[in-house]
């Protein structure tokens, strides 16, 4: 079975500061890794994904994430955040070759960007 842990439930940060949202996963098989964002009153939107290859992946809105297999982590980073990045961020995994693509989510991290 797979599980995902997001270590911070809330991250307050000032505008233009860097941010890192932490994600660790547990799995006995290879997985795909994802970050989704949920803006207020909206659905979950894919930010980026790691399938294979380069461990640094870039997504939309200037976000990037780095896959670290030895630490089973997939932390999300942005060098300079904007007020508009205020949202809830979810890390998720799906199992390689899992026909159906079921996602297992972390608890979510609420990013609050203050002016």
């Amino acid at each position: 079975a797979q599980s995902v842990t997001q270590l911070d439930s809330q991250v307050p940060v000032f505008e233009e500061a860097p941010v890192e949202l932490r994600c660790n996963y547990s799995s006995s098989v290879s997985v795909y890794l994802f970050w989704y964002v949920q803006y207020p009153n909206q659905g979950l939107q894919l930010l980026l994904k790691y399938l294979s290859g380069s461990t640094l992946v870039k997504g939309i809105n200037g976000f990037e994430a780095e896959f670290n297999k030895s630490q089973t982590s997939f932390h999300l980073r942005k060098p300079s955040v904007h007020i508009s990045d205020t949202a809830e961020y979810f890390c998720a995994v799906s199992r390689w070759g899992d026909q159906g693509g079921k996602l297992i989510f972390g608890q979510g991290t609420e990013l609050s960007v203050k002016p």
Partner: protein
Amino acid sequence: EPEVTQTPSHQVTQMGQEVILRCVPISNHLYFYWYRQILGQKVEFLVSFYNNEISEKSEIFDDQFSVERPDGSNFTLKIRSTKLEDSAMYFCASSEQGDGGNSPLHFGNGTRLTVT
């Protein structure tokens, strides 16, 4: 860009009543899903659906739940006799091929179900 749409955005019902949550997946997608998020908790997988049948379901998806694709566009989740603990945000999602990595899930905005 095509979207997954869910209706209603908020549903209030009394305990013991039946509710149907509706979703219109993206038109060329073949795999459909329901997830739910109880306030303050994780987004949890409920069920996946492909080729007019359930392909996988979680322990949460018991006999009180059912899914249906009644026509070529809608995908519904029915809860036969709602309980207080069914109160949650329910998300519908769809994907083109269901292979997880190359065909990510697209989510709707959710239906907030409140059982009183």
